[in-house]
């Protein structure tokens, strides 16, 4: 199995504070990685360094044999479209309807015809169960619906990997399920995924690998069974104990 994403000695500083301290890891095609860990540990920063929304201070990120950290903006744009991203706060374009949100990138970046883009968008909205909301504006949707549209929007570029940053953290509890369901379906279809999450159930059931992150390092990596049932690192144990208490 070749690595789809390879991370080598990845570091990131904001001013003087070192948020990521020399991370290493690799993601292979079809794999689902869940990144867990305490707040402020650097999970979001790590994920954002993968598609270079955040510029690493040092180290390398390689995606499908392209060293992202060595590319210019134009080249980066081409590779970013292969890496879908879903945000905690949905970030749907407020000035566009649902279907326009989904169509925008295919039309602007891939020069897809309007007809074709419409067909694509409708089928993706169908996939996330929201075809009837195609002409609504984001502000009129529930959080769960917005996040499903955001997933459809990312899928519209036909990405090779999907990055999720706590996609359910901003949702009311009764809406978490509908989003996790869409993500689980994606995983079942063989999508490569890196998911930052606090949903331990999802991590247990869907992840191939769980990476526990704390203080800017991966304190422990392993299968869900290894991490959740037989954690070795003290910090992992602490974290899991606190989570289970809550």
């Amino acid at each position, binding site marked *: 199995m070749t690595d789809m994403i390879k991370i080598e000695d990845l570091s990131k500083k904001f001013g003087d504070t070192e948020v990521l301290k020399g991370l290493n890891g690799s993601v292979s095609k079809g794999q689902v990685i869940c990144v867990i860990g305490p707040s402020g540990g650097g999970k979001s920063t790590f994920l954002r360094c993968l*598609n270079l*929304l955040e510029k690493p201070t040092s180290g390398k990120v390689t995606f499908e044999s392209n060293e992202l950290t060595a590319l210019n*903006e*134009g080249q980066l*744009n*081409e590779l*970013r*479209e292969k*890496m*879908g*991203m879903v*945000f905690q*706060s949905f*970030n*749907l*374009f*407020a*000035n566009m309807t649902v279907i326009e949100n989904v169509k*925008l*990138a295919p039309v*602007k*970046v891939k020069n897809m015809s309007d007809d074709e883009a419409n067909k694509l968008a409708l089928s993706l909205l169908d996939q996330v169960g929201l075809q009837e909301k195609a002409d609504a*504006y984001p*502000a*009129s949707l529930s959080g769960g619906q917005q996040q499903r549209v*955001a997933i459809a*929007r*990312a899928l519209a*570029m036909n990405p090779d990997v999907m990055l999720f940053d706590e996609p359910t953290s901003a949702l009311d509890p009764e809406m978490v399920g509908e989003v996790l369901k869409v993500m689980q379906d994606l995983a079942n279809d063989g999508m490569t995924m890196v998911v930052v999450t606090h949903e331990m159930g999802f991590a247990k059931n869907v992840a191939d690998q769980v990476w526990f992150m704390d203080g800017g390092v991966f304190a422990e990596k392993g299968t869900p069974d290894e991490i959740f049932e037989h954690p070795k690192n003290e910090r992992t144990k602490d974290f899991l104990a606190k989570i289970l208490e809550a």
Partner: protein
Amino acid sequence: MKKFFVWLGLVLGLVVTLAGISAQPAQAADNSLARVKEKGTLVMGTSPDYPPYEFLVNRNGKERVVGMDVDIAKKIAKDLGVKLVIKQMSFDSLLVALETNKVDMVVSGMSPTPAREKSVDFSKVYYKGGQSILINKTDKGLYHDKNSFINKAVGAQTGSIQYSLGKKQIKNSTVKGLDKISDLILALKSHKVEGVIMEKPSAQAYVDNDKSLTMINGNFNLGKGENDTAIGFRKGSTSLVNEVNKSVDQIDKQGLTKDYLKDAGSYMKTNTHNTTMWHYAGYFAKGVGYTLLITVISVFFGILLGIIFALMRLSKNKLLHGLGVAYIEFVRGTPLMIQVMFVYFGIGLFINIPALTSGIIAVSLNSAAYVAEIIRGGINSVAKGQTEAARSLGLSNTQTFRSVVFPQALKNIWPALGNEFVSLIKESSIVSIIGVTDLIYQLKAVQTATYKGVAPIIVAMILYFIMTFSLSKVLNHYERSMRHD
């Protein structure tokens, strides 16, 4: 903080350089006469609110500058064999206009005082008046001469001889300076001032046309030139002055000023024949037209340049960012009035820009700075996540800005931008100081022409309100149709 001083230095450096360039003595050999003959026109600067010297009349809805000074200038132009062009502006601006080549001569009831002679060459005296004080008829018994005004408020035109006479020769008085005689008359009638100092023939004109006014002799101690009226020229225009003096001699010998005054008097009679505001609808329409013209063009360029300056200020490029910041801060840190004068008189030293164009340029450039800040605020108010989502989909920086950020910014800035347009309608009135015939200018013209103070103000006020109110309504409509929630 260090950065701040760098900017301050940069801006000041720029200003000093500009000032240095414009302060270079333009004096070469005296070619003043040759120059006038060559271009075939003699441009006269005047402030037409000083009957019978110069004032505006309404002929079939068209306005015209007439008066003794105009007749004199016509004779001079005829003697020189060139065409007379009349440029109107406020009395205060006349000498600057002379200095900056906007006009060839100033004929505006001006007295050749020693102070003025330092910066202006004067022709021989063409008229000797006297200084009177205009008062309300009801106060007739109270005031006898200047000494009656001790401890009282009197009015005079800003920058005029009468103003300094009042300051120097009436003990403990407050001298209120206003730009326009018509405003002074208003102040007099509402007892903001108890008397208005003006030249005898002017005072006579007001008394003849307004039954509530009367005049008394000021009994001022008049120094050299303060009783006289002469024509002003740019310093060093000896050849032109000499030639004009020949005409002045003729006027003197033939006693032509008497005829000219009579001529002016006849205009004043016909002029005051019909003083209803309706009769002057044409004046107001023209004013509204110019105000709208200036506003519309300035809004267009204001937005265009505003976007550019906002993007410069938001740019990561240090040079562009710096220029953007410097421009915006400098323009917002100086009054529009000075900017208007700078464009017309200052830049006008190098290229001759007509008053209307100067006004539009200044207002546009000024508006651009404010619009830039509105746009920058709007762009910054678009959540960062919107940009990140677009970039994560592979959209370029430019595509992201155009499709995602700008439309949302526009929605945020629309109300503020609307306010800016509305205030532009009002603020553009400042261009009247360089003689652009916008609504404010026309308001003063109607005041002078009708000898009525308040009625034209009310008409202009209502017209301004109609313009701003309808614009607000239209903008509100668009704002509503832009909402998505």
